[in-house]
């Protein structure tokens, strides 16, 4: 069997193992190890294992991940999320569907200090759901809003899947974060339109609430300052070259400062207890362990895959096809949506990028290689995140439906539909106009 054949066969075995409950990290490790031995024999593998796993975990760019997770977990356990919702609601609540729009806005704002979608959905769900239900918002609209809003957690930087994409493809993390802003803003606008559209067809499911006096509204908005301050410090510092020509700190330092500031804010103005701090640390430990196991698996599998030349051969074959590069992109998007029925976003990125990335880089979109890589990264992030809200798995949907308790699964999925329509238009826009993503990038 040729090395190329071995690469293909390994991928089939990998998918089979995944279907049979082998954890993704373990499956990638096992297939990678098997393939490594097939191609090079046992001795190089054994010497690879002596230091490479440690060195992988010691990668400086990887240290961003546990630190951003810590920041998000601390923020989730604090009272900051409630402040964000109150502030957004003071601005928007008196419009029809305003409380739902406020929930979306608060999710986006929370996304600036949290890099995970599930955590954003769960945190804002606990804060916003009871309020929306209390003011007469229907179960479908309120659960659908929060499930969709939760996806803003990974779309708005920081974003763990984006960090992983940056490392896998050797792109600049800060630039990718910057590129995510306009697509994230489009998502917020799209979700607002989806909410208004829903209200148009189902009036009475999202009533306007009483308008507060101006001073009270100003006070509630002003109370969101800790989150805004943390976000500004972290992102201005990380993207310093965009603002004043040199970056002040590396992404890792940005994550460290962010985690420190979030902890200080949570313990002082957020009213967090030490017990909750321990809980945040424990959650960070489990999430990091789970992510790094997949990263190690990907490292081993990719070490093998790179030796088979399979990705390059596939990329060459695809670029030689007599079809539009946009059609290839559409097929890739479709594959992500299908995979999203089975997997979480991070696993999807790690599994597919080694093959899809060379394919995309081999296509001609009229962009520089760096711009192609950034554009594809943002696009991939958006479509893998769709898997969190579309049936049948839609983890965000389950989390929110669970918090609500009194809303049926069918109704929650019904509530998600307008948001999926908005997302369809957004993905089309982002594919058709790469400028939208690249506008902020120099």
């Amino acid at each position: 069997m040729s090395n190329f054949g071995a690469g293909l066969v390994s991928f089939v075995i990998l998918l089979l193992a995944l279907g049979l409950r082998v954890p993704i990290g373990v499956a990638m490790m096992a297939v990678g190890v098997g393939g490594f031995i097939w191609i090079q024999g046992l001795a190089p593998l054994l010497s690879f294992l002596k230091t490479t796993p440690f060195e992988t975990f010691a990668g400086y760019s990887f240290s961003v991940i546990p630190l951003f997770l810590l920041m998000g977990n601390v923020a989730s356990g604090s009272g900051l999320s409630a402040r964000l919702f109150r502030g957004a609601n003071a601005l928007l609540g008196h419009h029809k569907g305003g409380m739902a729009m406020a929930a979306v806005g608060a999710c986006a704002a929370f996304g600036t200090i949290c890099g995970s979608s599930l955590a954003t959905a769960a945190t804002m769900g606990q804060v916003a759901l009871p309020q929306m239900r209390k003011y007469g918002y229907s179960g479908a609209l309120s659960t659908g809003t929060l499930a969709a809003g939760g996806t803003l957690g990974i779309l708005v930087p920081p974003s763990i899947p984006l960090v992983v994409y940056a490392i896998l493809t050797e792109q600049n993390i800060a630039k990718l974060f910057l590129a995510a802003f306009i697509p994230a803003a489009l998502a917020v606008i799209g979700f607002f339109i989806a909410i208004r559209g829903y209200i148009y067809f189902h009036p009475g499911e999202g009533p306007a609430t009483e308008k507060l006096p101006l001073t009270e509204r100003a006070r509630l908005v002003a109370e969101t300052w800790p989150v805004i301050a943390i976000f500004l410090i972290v992102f201005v510092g990380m993207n310093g070259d965009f603002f004043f020509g040199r970056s002040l700190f590396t992404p890792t330092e940005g994550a460290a400062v962010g985690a420190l500031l979030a902890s200080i804010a949570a313990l002082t103005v957020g009213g967090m207890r030490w017990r909750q701090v321990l809980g945040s640390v424990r959650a960070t430990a489990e999430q990091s362990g789970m992510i790094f196991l997949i990263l190690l698996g990907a490292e081993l599998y990719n070490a093998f895959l790179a030796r088979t030349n399979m990705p390059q051969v596939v990329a060459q074959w695809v670029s030689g096809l007599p079809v539009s590069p946009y059609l290839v992109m559409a097929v890739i998007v479709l594959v992500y949506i299908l995979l999203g029925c089975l997997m979480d976003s991070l696993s999807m990125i790690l599994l597919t990028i080694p093959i899809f990335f060379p394919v995309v880089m081999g296509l001609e979109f009229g962009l520089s290689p760096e711009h192609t890589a950034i554009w594809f990264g943002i696009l991939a992030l958006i479509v893998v995140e769709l898997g969190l809200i579309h049936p049948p798995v839609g983890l965000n949907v389950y989390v929110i439906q669970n918090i609500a308790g009194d809303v049926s699964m069918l109704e929650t999925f019904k509530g998600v539909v307008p948001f999926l329509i908005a997302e369809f238009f957004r993905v089309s826009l982002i594919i058709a106009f790469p400028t939208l993503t690249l506008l902020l990038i120099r």
Partner: protein
Amino acid sequence: MEAAHIARAAPAPHGPIGRLLEGVCGAVAMLGGLLLIAIMLVSSLSVMGRAGSLLFAARISGIPGDVELVQLGCAVAVFAFLPICQLKRANVLVGAFTKSLPVRARAGFDLVANLLFFVLTFALAFQLGIGTREKFVNHDTTMVLRFPEGWAYAAALAFAWLLVITTAYTVARSALEIHSNRAIGPSPSGEH
């Protein structure tokens, strides 16, 4: 997530070994968490030092070797996080194709997966041990601080062996689940 929305028979509690391991793995994970907090402080202090020297032209500066400390600390912390993850079934897996199968069949698949993981972690820990010895023999140190890398490797090695023990336990746990036809211990949080 899975367990939350599909009603199933309540899982049987841990046995004494499971409880002991949960305590040890939990403590080790907290140790890793402390290390992560230390990394956060070192990195933040370094930024503040640099900002201070920029603003006040004072004699303070960033922490020398902060990058090395972050790297070694992070690697050790991650090794400390892996055992609790395995013990609590937090590792991500695709459950869609097997979720309607009876407990016994699912435990059968888990047995194979855990056995595979056990073999892999055993090889990893064994080879990491050789790597650690080489680091000590060669007196490998970090570039700036001249910190002996062997010590960080040794800490990681201890946690890697805890991971081996934990995977061995999960193999036995799956076997017991097949035998008793009942889920044991924490319900999966990583299943999709």
